[in-house]
């Protein structure tokens, strides 16, 4: 289970970086195959998130880990990019816009998650978070790879500093920070649900190239 997922995302990530010599991927790897891999990655992350969120919300304690918990989304929580969008708007997205929205969202979510990693208390949680961040990084790379193979430019934006995206103040107290963390996980979950649909849609529009996925993955 776990090792297959890691293998998939690593291949997806590394195969789409043409400069990487260590992994010998067949050049016939078409956009269609990458989209499938990206889709698989979102499903894998969704699965991982369920465990991570469960552990994290237990760490925050009740009421955060109660199933019907629905706190207000305060002003500061708006900074996390929202996955929910009008249905017609979503249908009408161009491939470029669709991919770009995903790329931007996960890049930002990754930043926030990394900040979390630095502050969290227990060793088990830090370990799970680190693992999840690595997988999420793989997803961002994978989406970037799909965009490049389709000829789209990657959305602009410098790599965020470790302290988190600039211009966003940290939560002023510990309780508000817990609420921010709750919404971060919720939004991550919603995005992964949405991405599965996004990539399903893209799969249908971009026919998979007739390829055999030949991978000489060394060291796995």
């Amino acid at each position, binding site marked *: 289970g776990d090792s297959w997922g890691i293998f998939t995302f690593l291949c997806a990530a590394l195969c789409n970086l043409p400069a990487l010599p260590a992994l010998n991927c067949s050049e016939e790897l078409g956009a269609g195959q990458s989209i499938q891999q990206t889709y698989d990655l979102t499903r894998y992350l969704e699965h991982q998130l369920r465990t991570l969120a469960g552990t994290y919300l237990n760490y*925050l304690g009740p*009421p955060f880990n109660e199933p019907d918990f629905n706190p207000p989304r*305060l002003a500061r929580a708006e900074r996390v990019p929202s996955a929910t969008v009008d249905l017609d708007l979503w249908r009408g997205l161009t491939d470029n816009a669709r991919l770009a929205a995903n790329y931007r969202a996960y890049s930002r979510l990754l930043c926030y998650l990394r900040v979390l990693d630095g502050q969290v208390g227990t060793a088990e949680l830090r370990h799970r978070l680190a693992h999840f961040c690595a997988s999420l990084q793989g997803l961002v790379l994978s989406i970037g790879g799909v965009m490049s193979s389709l000829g789209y430019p990657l959305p602009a934006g410098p790599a965020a500093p470790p302290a988190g995206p600039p211009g966003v103040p940290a939560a002023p107290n510990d309780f508000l920070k817990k609420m921010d963390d709750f919404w971060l996980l919720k939004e991550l979950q919603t995005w992964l649900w949405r991405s599965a649909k996004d990539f399903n849609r893209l799969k249908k529009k971009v026919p998979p190239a007739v390829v055999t996925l030949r991978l000489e993955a060394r060291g796995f």
Partner: protein
Amino acid sequence: VSPAADPAVISPQDPTLLIGSSLVATCTVSPDFPLKAEDLYWTLNGRRLPAASYATLGPSTLSVALARLNGSRQQSGDNLVCHSRDGGILAGSCLYVGLPPEKPVNITCWSKNMKDLTCKWAPGTEGETFLHTNYTLKYKRRWYGQDNTCQEYHTAGTYSCHIPKDLALFTPYEIWVEASNRLGVAVSDVVMLDILDVVTTDPPSDVHVSRVGDLEDQLSVRWSSPPALKDFLFQAKYQIQYRVEDSSEWKVVDDVGNQTSCRLAGLRPGTVYFVQVRCNPFSIYGSKKAGIWSDWSNPTAASTPRSERVAGGCDPKGGEQNTTLRRELKQFFGWVKKHAYGCSNLGIKLYDQWRVWLQKSHKTRNQV
């Protein structure tokens, strides 16, 4: 449009408290909000607090009294929340309730091949877990040098740290552990040691166990001294432990000096044994002090020989076939001779002749 201000403010915000202490918290609704004190209620970790503990301090301020607090349910703090009548969250405060840390104890350290130092310790008493406790291992050279802080934690269990380099030999070090949490700091006793006193090494390599000729009760064990310490002046002490394959009881051979071979005797014939060897870098630089035993080498297996005695095997010469039956027949015929008159020709020789005839007739039958 989301409101810019928070709906309410709780005081104290995120306090740290000793177990057993009491607390009075207040929730003040922001003037932008049309809520009054009687529209509010409190929960702690999701459970509603009894109205009897509330007090109205002002038109939009409600307080709650919490007595004899237990240790925090989770290390991220207990969630004390001020709600509006419909259940909505107006504000929250995280309560950190626990005890100050105890002195860490039982600091033990070891150095692998004099290159590094790993230390482990135990939290004082049971280790208080209501509050997150940070452990820092510090060390310095006695009489001079500043305090250094160990950076690589959890290398040999939760309460451990690894110092990978820049360690001097022939000089005593002072080592201690500081435990800190929100309620205070506790410092362990200082341990003093010289790196050379706590040296351990890798287990011996190339452990070979072989038979000693045909001897049924002996095995010969051979190994190489650990290569990492070959440049340093030391004598090694070795220990061997062995056990029978299906037993969990190890026998230890203790007085193996500086040799790299040993003969095990008094073993059971025809038995598989598992053997392990470990090393102690005794007397580093002539110090005459024992070091720390290495881990045991991976078990090596060998079996003692068993002498070949055929019990009732198939002997084509025809004489030894089924010795038990032959013996019994001999006894029977002997008895017949004594007690039965006549049949004096009946004997074991007749039986043998019958068997020879039986084999001959089998052969002719098969040749057809």
